[in-house]
């Protein structure tokens, strides 16, 4: 009924697309084209060019930047690590946010304060949060060492960021820490739409807590989960400050992801062409990531 009415309303709009839509969406298109797509185009073009340290162009060189990049022995390990990084951070973020949201959805004394506490890592700059973690994990002066020593869990001071595997695990932990608040809030928003009457009805039907969660709450949370996962995928993949502040991708390239590697090539080797090709590959990867994710999660099915 509504749709018939509104489509009648909309008809004149549809006829005059150029005049109708443009004043509304034109500014947005202009800003996106000029400030996002144009730099992207410049970057892709640069990836096929030979540009020296001063920024002077020496013309097109075809695929030579890409060839140099593919011969970089660090590329394959970095790509593998990027995959582990993105998948594990998003996975653990969701696994932790689901119960956290459940707790914050329930009523208990002090809930408002706990919700405020959860907002802090979201509001605070990731650079600053990572710096604090770097200090907590410090091998000599860090408070984590003190705590673990007091508890008798370790006998000597531990260099938490001493070897690549261990530091990478800590980087993942910090990334999860930073991502959980936003994800929790999206799930909380999803939970409010589930509605208490549905829950009560199913309680009357004799469903246990876990059964209710599995068969009623969780399926209804699907849209909220999908959206938070897509946004997390993009953010985590593009994440730069955590790794940069805590390990600068090092030692060597041992904790780099493609994002920090691209930055390193830009500002350390000053090879603009090569770093542009890294950034271009980076974008191709995130496109594939998202496309795969949407396909696997069958995004459209629910529409």
């Amino acid at each position, binding site marked *: 009924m509504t749709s018939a009415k509104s489509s009648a*309303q909309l008809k004149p709009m549809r006829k005059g697309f150029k005049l109708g839509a443009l004043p509304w969406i034109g500014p947005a298109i202009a800003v996106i084209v000029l400030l996002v797509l144009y730099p992207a185009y410049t970057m892709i073009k640069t990836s096929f060019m030979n540009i020296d340290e001063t920024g002077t162009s020496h013309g097109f060189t075809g695929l030579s930047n890409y060839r140099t990049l593919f011969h970089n022995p660090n590329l394959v390990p970095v790509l593998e690590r990027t995959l582990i990084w993105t998948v594990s951070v998003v996975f653990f973020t969701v696994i932790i946010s689901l119960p956290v949201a459940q707790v914050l959805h329930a009523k208990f004394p002090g809930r408002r304060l706990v919700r405020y506490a959860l*907002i802090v890592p979201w509001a605070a700059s990731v650079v600053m949060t990572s710096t604090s973690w770097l200090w907590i994990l410090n091998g000599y002066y860090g408070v984590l060492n003190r705590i673990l020593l007091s508890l008798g869990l370790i006998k000597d001071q531990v260099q938490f960021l001493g070897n690549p595997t261990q530091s990478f695990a800590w980087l993942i932990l910090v990334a999860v820490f930073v991502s959980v608040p936003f994800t929790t809030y999206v799930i909380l928003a999803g939970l409010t*739409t589930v509605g208490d009457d549905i829950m009560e009805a199913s309680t009357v039907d004799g469903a246990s807590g876990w059964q209710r969660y599995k068969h009623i709450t969780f399926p209804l949370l699907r849209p909220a989960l999908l959206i938070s996962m897509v946004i997390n995928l993009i953010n985590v993949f593009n994440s730069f400050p955590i790794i940069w502040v805590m390990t600068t991708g090092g030692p060597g390239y041992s904790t780099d992801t493609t994002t920090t590697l691209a*930055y390193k090539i*830009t500002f350390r080797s000053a090879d603009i062409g090569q770093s542009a090709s890294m950034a271009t590959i980076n974008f191709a990867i995130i496109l594939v990531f998202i496309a795969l994710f949407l396909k696997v999660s069958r995004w459209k099915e629910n529409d």
Partner: protein
Amino acid sequence: MSSTVATLVTKRKRFTGRKVSLMISGWVIGLIFLAPYIEMLITSVKSKSEILAIPTTYAPQHWTWSNYITIWKQLPLAQYLRTSIVVSLSATVLVLLIAVPAAYYVGRNKFRGRTAFLFLVLVTQMFSPTSLIIGIFREVIRFHLVDTWLALILIYAAFNLAFSIWILSSFFASIPIEIEEAAWIDGASRIQALRRVILPVALPGLITAFIFTFISAWNEFVIALTIESSPVHQPITVGLESLIGQYQVQWQYLFAGSLIAIVPVVILFALIEKWLVSGLTAGSVK
């Protein structure tokens, strides 16, 4: 009778037991997420010598609040904060000015090119300014915007536009058209109806879009570091960077400065917390 009382009692017992365990897990969660900032606060009031104590102290032995005065004098923090406020606010206002009409139109109308437009928005969401830094820097040089506020305002606005359009358009779409039609019948123009009827209803969505853009602009680091070379134009995130020396970090000052940057945003965020869940709801349903 007595059996009813018994069930009532066990029910209440179970209920309070559940409540207590909820409360404890809630508080533990809160504490975990505050921990790095509590450590920041503790470190920021330690003296220089205490910072380098092994093993470290849990609480400062001597509360050196003067660290805050020292850092305020040592760095032009007020100036950095002014830049952060001007840039973040301008970028946010710009985003809303551009996103509201676009989101409203997309949320309300079917038109040719709608899918293409939404696809464009989705693709924008996938770019981060950090990954496009080469392209952005070359463009900024080309338009002579190096070391200006305007460059940051434009870039932050552009990269936050997608999220705002997306969340606002699902919000507008969820508002029944009848509300608006009633306003039209009363003789309001489309713009008037948008301003007086739709925007107030969409307030949670607007606030959510506002806070997302503001926070991301306030906390951005890499682009500001690359573009802004003079302290007058540097936001606080970049300004504090000077405390991280190559060999020695002045942790107490770094964290005092960081907290000065973090606290206003947390307060702002806490003020709108109650709107946040409803603001995200429309986006999470659609």
